[in-house]
């Protein structure tokens, strides 16, 4: 018995929203204030790493097509890598700022996986539209974590990074398997539900 794909999207959307809000708070109040409580420094990197671990069950159980399996696997790996690197940087186990390149890598990989594994056109159904939008958002938003490698203290870049994560979570929370998008729904998609 598997839950609907959209429910998995909602669950991950909720967790990613929390990560995005943490990032937004950090960007608004500044890193010094945000890290006045030590545990807060670990909060969003730990969540990102945990999300990576939690994506493995999704990869292993959703085998209705090979390419979905590979897409979920690639998200699991890049989230574990980027979240793990961030956590190690906060902890002091890693010191090179180049490890922050794992975030743009994660964004580009995640976006490409979204675009490649979605085989339906934009206006096929709402989920297809959101997959394309998610893919392009990830690919284009990679510029924020990339620029943060060189300008880690920039409030604008930090804010942009946080807003992008929040935007991604909102898209995931909007996802529904069979629902119209701007009034369009392919006759091939089936009957809308809920």
């Amino acid at each position, binding site marked *: 018995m598997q839950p609907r794909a959209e429910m998995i999207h909602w669950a991950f959307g909720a967790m990613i929203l929390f990560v995005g809000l943490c990032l937004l708070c950090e960007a608004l109040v500044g890193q010094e204030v945000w890290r006045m409580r030590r545990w807060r420094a670990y909060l969003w990197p730990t969540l990102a790493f945990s999300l990576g671990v939690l994506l*493995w069950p999704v990869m292993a159980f959703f085998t209705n097509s090979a390419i979905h399996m590979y897409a979920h696997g690639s998200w699991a790996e890049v989230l574990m890598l980027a979240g793990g690197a961030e956590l190690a940087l906060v902890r002091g186990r890693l010191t090179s700022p180049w490890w922050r390149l794992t975030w743009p890598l994660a964004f580009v990989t995640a976006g490409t996986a979204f*675009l490649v594994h979605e*085989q339906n056109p934009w206006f096929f159904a709402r989920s297809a539209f959101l997959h394309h939008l998610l893919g392009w958002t990830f690919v284009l938003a990679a510029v924020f974590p990339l620029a943060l490698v060189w300008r880690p203290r920039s409030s604008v870049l930090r804010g942009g990074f946080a807003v992008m994560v929040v935007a991604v979570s909102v898209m995931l929370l909007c996802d529904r398997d069979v629902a119209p998008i701007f009034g369009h729904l392919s006759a091939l998609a089936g009957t809308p539900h809920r």
Partner: protein
Amino acid sequence: MRTLVVAVLVALLAPATASAHATLRATSPHFGTEVSRAPTTIRLGFDQHVRLLPDSIRVLDSRGVNLARPAHNAGRSIVAPLRHLPRGPYTVRWHAISADSHVVSGVWTFGVGVPAPAVTSAYGAGGPTRTEHLVRWLWFLGLAATIGVLGLRLIVLRGLTVPRELEHRIAITAGVGALVSLHAGIAAFSLRSEDALQLPFARFLYADLSPMAATRFGRAFVVMTLGFALVLALIYLAWLLDRVVYLVPALALSTVLVAGLSLSGHDAADAGSSWKTEAADWVHIAAASLWIGGLAALVGLVWFAAPSLRRTAFARFSRLATVLVAVVIAAGTYLSIVRLPQLSDLWSTGYGHVLLVKLGLVVLALAWGAFHHFAIGPLIARADDGLLSRIGGSLAAESLVGVAVLLAAAVLVDSRPPTQPIRTSDRQSQAQPAAVTLPP
């Protein structure tokens, strides 16, 4: 550069213009089931409308004869009437066009009056290839690296002051081992599925793998994937927090997960297999992984990264290896007796040939190990640096033989043992008429 950027953009845009792909929601008969009455139709229900191809549904008997008549659409389902299906196993291969042009495919099996064969044994599946042997070998190497390195740290180096640099290398090596196990598992599952589906790679990407996930191999893949993701996380936490204690559950879990290879191999599925052969196979692989992986870790990590620990680690590992080798030999001997009903099978069957090669390599590794244990062991306490370096080279060579043993084991696990002779009681039961009522 501009061309490259354009090419990447086109590659990303291309899927957006491809067509909708359908997902199979229901089948009749359900995959992997044994039906008592021969079905008259095959029905596949999709989540959207699909179009038919010539031979959209083929129902193949054990000789490869197609018993399905041309299929037709029925709403979001496709239905193919069947000729009369005699008692036996059947393979269903299907293809359909979803939306405008995208072809989705799948395979499943069912049995009429007999248990359905595993989908990996569907008609047309060619069996393990060299690529599968290679992937299985990488799987073994990943397991050996994880279990061996963690075992070395927790058993051999227990209570010793381990330099921080060595701790770091131990975590990296064990983590890489877990990652290799994870990836090799995905590759092995993909290859096994591709073989069952008999599709070119481009079409395989959109094929339904659910029937494969429901097999023993598929279930082992799911459990091992989840398990090794957890092992990877535990190793990472041990490294991040400098807490060796997190390696204990990582080692325990990895050792348990070795059972996945046993439960999905011939020892669990072939005639003559029982819980005893499954347990013996698990013990055999776990002990061999700890022995070979531990030996490689002793050379690769301790010998060169922590010279001060060489003597103690060598003596402790030597004692541990003695126990492990005894376990490997005991379990291996039992399994050989079960799998090879006659001694002549050793030289008259392909399985026997691979086993002979493996035995030869094991004997070489054992002789080398015995030399280290009995000849080098007493000298190591007073050996100078030059001798210790030469011992390191000899240990590295022994571990390479161990790696070769794992390659032979990978081929052996994928090979089918000789057929078991039918016992008298089985022969009598086979002579009884089948208690299955079939339509005339």
